[in-house]
């Protein structure tokens, strides 16, 4: 895969089987260990244990996390991803409540914020996904999950499994 500054993580929810391998790969990139609790891509379940989809930072245009940070600890890296500078972050968590997508995280062990940084241009989740439900493509970002989730939440809402 050739990375350009405009590449985004594109999610194909209908292909996701809920195996959570992306979370393992992501946590390895984030922490150097396998630690899904610290993955910044999270697979959401929808209805009846038949529908899953990974969800992560859209690298939104506003970059609410970045503009909220009082010390300028969030910047834009070479891959175009908002990225936390560990030595600047003070761990105030403002970015975690500023990001309206819920994709800004905080690690109580390091006392730093962390987020998807597109692995600097070679996203491990996309490489790890065995069904290509996550691809890294030069396209505009979109709400990849909304329609899938709408359809696949009908049972949950109807209370049938």
């Amino acid at each position, binding site marked *: *895969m050739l990375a350009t500054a405009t590449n985004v993580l594109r999610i194909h929810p209908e*292909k*996701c*089987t*809920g*195996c*959570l*391998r992306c979370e*393992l*790969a992501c*946590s*390895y*990139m*984030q*922490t*150097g*260990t*396998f*630690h*899904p*609790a*610290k993955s910044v891509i999270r*697979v*959401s*379940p929808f209805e*009846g*244990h*038949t*529908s*899953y989809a990974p969800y992560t930072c859209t690298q939104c245009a506003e970059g609410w996390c970045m503009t909220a940070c009082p010390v300028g600890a969030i910047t834009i890296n070479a891959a175009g991803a908002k990225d936390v500078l*560990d030595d600047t972050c003070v761990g105030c968590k403002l970015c975690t409540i500023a990001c309206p997508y819920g994709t800004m995280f905080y*690690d109580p*062990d*390091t006392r730093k914020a*962390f987020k998807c*940084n597109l*692995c*600097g241009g*070679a996203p*491990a989740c996309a*490489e*790890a996904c*065995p*069904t290509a439900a996550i691809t890294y493509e030069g396209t505009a970002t979109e709400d990849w999950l909304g329609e899938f989730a709408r359809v696949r939440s009908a049972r949950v809402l109807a209370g049938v*499994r």
Partner: protein
Amino acid sequence: MTTASLRAPSKRPTPSAARQPQDGYAGKLLRVDLAKKKCWAEPWSPDAMRELVGGVGLGAMILYRETATKGGKGNVSWDHPDNRLVMATGPMAGLPAWGSSGLTVVTIGAGTNGPTSTQANGFFGTNLKYSGYDAIIIQGHAPDWVYLYINDDVVELRDARDLLGKDTWATQDTLSAKLGLSGHMLSVYSIGPAGENLARFAAIQGDYGHVASKNGCGAVMGKKKLKAVAIVRGTKALRASDPRGLMQAADDIGFDLRTDPSAKSLYEYGTLPGVVNLSRLGALPIKNYTTNVSSVDMSQWEAPKLREGFDHRGHQCSACGMHHCHMSVIRQGERKGTIVDEPEYEGWSGAGWAIGAMSDIEGVAWLNTELDKACLDVNEFGWICGWVMECQEKGYITEEQLGFRLKWGDIKGAARLIQMISHRQGFGNLLAEGVKRAAEKLGSPAKDCAIYTERGAAPRGHDHRARWDEMLDTCTAATGTLESGVPVHPTEVGQPARINTFDGEAVAKFIAGIRGRRNFEDSLGMCIFTTRTRLENLCRALNAATGWDVTVPETVRFGRRTSAILRAVSLRCGHTPDLERPSTRYGSTPIDGPAKGQAVGAQWEKMVDTWYREVGYDRKSGKPLPATLKELGLDWLTKDLWGKRA
């Protein structure tokens, strides 16, 4: 992952990922005493990990050490409080190799009243290891129904009285709702009514469709009044010794699974192709072994057709890329819209062909899930239901006895039978004893129609009269079910790639020769399907995870050691070699189809003789010979089995 990801991780390791004494492992065993209502963590040493690995390796040793009766000659029976229920995973669980969330249940099973090793997957191993444990060892009987709740360091036995009577899916639904956790945030392994009511072929079912099915392990759970084990996805870290090497090995295994001819169809369609493929060999069991000729158009049973017939949705185990373990939404008919687990080959056979249901595909799929929900082993159910159907047809079991008329292929009737067995109602009370005990109770001629092994186990969903290798394996295994299992690359362990399955001598040598690998696989915390690669790859992955230097010969030796220990337990349970044979029907000769006239019975004794010679066990007593044990490094076991003089 391609090489692009093989860079250093972007962040330094976090303190919570502090090094465990042994890479690849969570590092602790969870001991649960139901009678005392206590749960505690037990450390296990890196040496013990290397010796026992996990899964069946660990479980076998726990059974051996902890279930003997006083003096070490006998063994506690399945329903004794001292029986252990070991739910173990292994070093690969939770790591990125495909299908790595393996659960191996090891216990004294209710079916044979002997040792059991039976597997499932889902998210058991992942959730457990990220909570900090490699295995759960359960002992004692709870005074009242409880479930085990594990959330990192919070481990509790909680009241399960409100879950009683619920099927396994409803149990998981209820716990998810109660705990406010959805999807894989919660892994639940539970028993349904069949387990609660101690049906001897009750299974343990988990995560919607994964079943540890063999030898009545669900009845053991029921006897212990343990309704479920619910594990929240833990928040701890697992460290691999060489994470990049592990990912490379995992990717190479994935590549093999996708492309190797011996694994490819499994990758694409799971076990679905088995139906048509086995029918061509005469190994598809039709109507309780009464025929091997299909009366329906087999094209509708081709794997792609089977899958396309449903709105099918992925529901893979941890980190798995196989197109296997799917959920299906029924598209048409009276059960339209119902979500079922896509049946495995075993489901199509046990809930379908064996009971003469060969055209109502949706019905079979539904029935298969009903079995999972009740928690009955689909194989043994197939044999028992098919047997009842045949006996009714022949008048050996009357309508009055059963309470209704059950004809070949009657899905609704079969579902009724499930309920009768799981609640031990009427004739169901007898059937809940399993096919062997029920058949013996009724006696001939009904008995002669029943499919079982004399040890008390039921074979898998094949017609083994066309697969003598598996019949021999099933009958001689200490666990009552496949112990050798035909591997992908027999040549890797010095066996021929192919044998004539109707040549008893060759079959016996082959089955003895491949022994070991399966136990190794079942100790890793992986899935039997995602280990369908060269052993060398598995060693690479294991070594990358643990930092060990395990070699291929060592894996075989490890597996054989585990077999010897299991055999020692089964001997303590009173399983003598004379039980190592098929029932009359199981060992009969096919009257039609591709294997017509192939008489396994004629060669049986010689096959067993050869097998004993090849594995180095004593034909008379069944004990592994001292020389064999010495070779395996099990001198301590020699002392136990043969006394001081050996």
